[in-house]
């Protein structure tokens, strides 16, 4: 695995994503759901909302990094609110 040039933080990052995916898979099997239509006018399941959250969070982090010189954890707080909003209304 040397060639993959692993670092602690990236391992934690992928670990969290993998754990999230596994959690959502288990949730989807244990508690099947019907898709619902939210503010975007599209049908979404929990998985869709997770995807929208993760992709949006990536862009929020990049925008924060590119436009502000504030510490990066500030972007994570915004992401948290974003995630809550997506899971509540999308």
């Amino acid at each position, binding site marked *: 695995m*040397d*060639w*993959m*040039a*692993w*670092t602690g*933080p*990236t391992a934690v*990052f*992928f670990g969290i994503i993998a754990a999230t995916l596994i959690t959502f*898979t288990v949730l*989807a*099997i244990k508690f*099947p*759901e*019907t*898709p619902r239509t939210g503010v975007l*006018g*599209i*049908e979404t*399941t929990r998985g869709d909302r997770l*995807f929208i959250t993760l*992709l949006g969070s*990536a*862009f929020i982090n*990049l925008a924060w*990094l*590119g436009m502000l010189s504030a510490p*990066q954890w500030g972007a994570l707080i915004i992401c948290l609110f974003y995630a809550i909003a997506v899971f509540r209304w999308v």
Partner: protein
Amino acid sequence: MNKAVNQKAWFLILPVLLLVAFSAVIPLMTVVNYSVQDTFGSNKFFWVGLEWFEEMLASERMWNALGRQITFSAIILAIEIPLGIFVALNMPKKGFWASLCLVLMSLPLLIPWNVVGTIWQIFGRVDIGLLGYTLSALGIDYNYTQDFYAAWITVIVMDVWHWTSLVALLAYAGLQSIPDAYYQAAKIDQASRLSVFRFIELPKIMGVLMIAILLRFMDSFMIYTEPFVVTGGGPGNSTTFLSIDLVKMALGQFDLGPAAAFSIMYYLVILLVSYVFYTVMTNLDKRDGH
């Protein structure tokens, strides 16, 4: 009432997941690892945090390459989609000529990218190429190795030549699936040719058209071989598109960190656009009741 979604079927695609893990996921993870480190070769890496992302977000070179890339994709979509539909509308519906048209239309799609590049590189040369020689004989100053506009026009015309038939074939398939009854009804209502297109043909081919747009967007957004062979990214760096610049940065200059940081952003943009297209497509399908 909607049936609950059964997610167990996902386990059936495990073999594909394994394949994708080796061909895409593991390389992508490695790119993420590279993007937060610096290296001077011999597999030694130094942690730099988000520095490369910051540098790339402020880098004029990359924004310019992104701008050129978006411009390129927008231009070829604006030409290929209407042109493809137009060609499809005018293709014979059945018989010998339909088959002949289909074969002829498929030919450019069968040619490998680097060969397409080589064809156009020679085709456009002023000394031996048919296009370049003819244009200069007509008194038009055309030199794609030195002139910005000539280079862009060559690359765009090449892409249009190579890929319009894909759009045309997809649109043609969509048009063929429209039952005759629709046209008969339109005739009874004395609908004009334009309204037949607007209210019957266009809505019916929307699904395949979306696929065509998505395919053409993704393909043009990652275009590398053809412009690399024809113009080498020049003159200057006027046709240096994103992937050309990334390869230059990663392999030419061996700046793995910055190149990794930028390719992640590149990937995110493609992911976003593809997701939006996919969502629009599936919603169109649902609206049509498929």
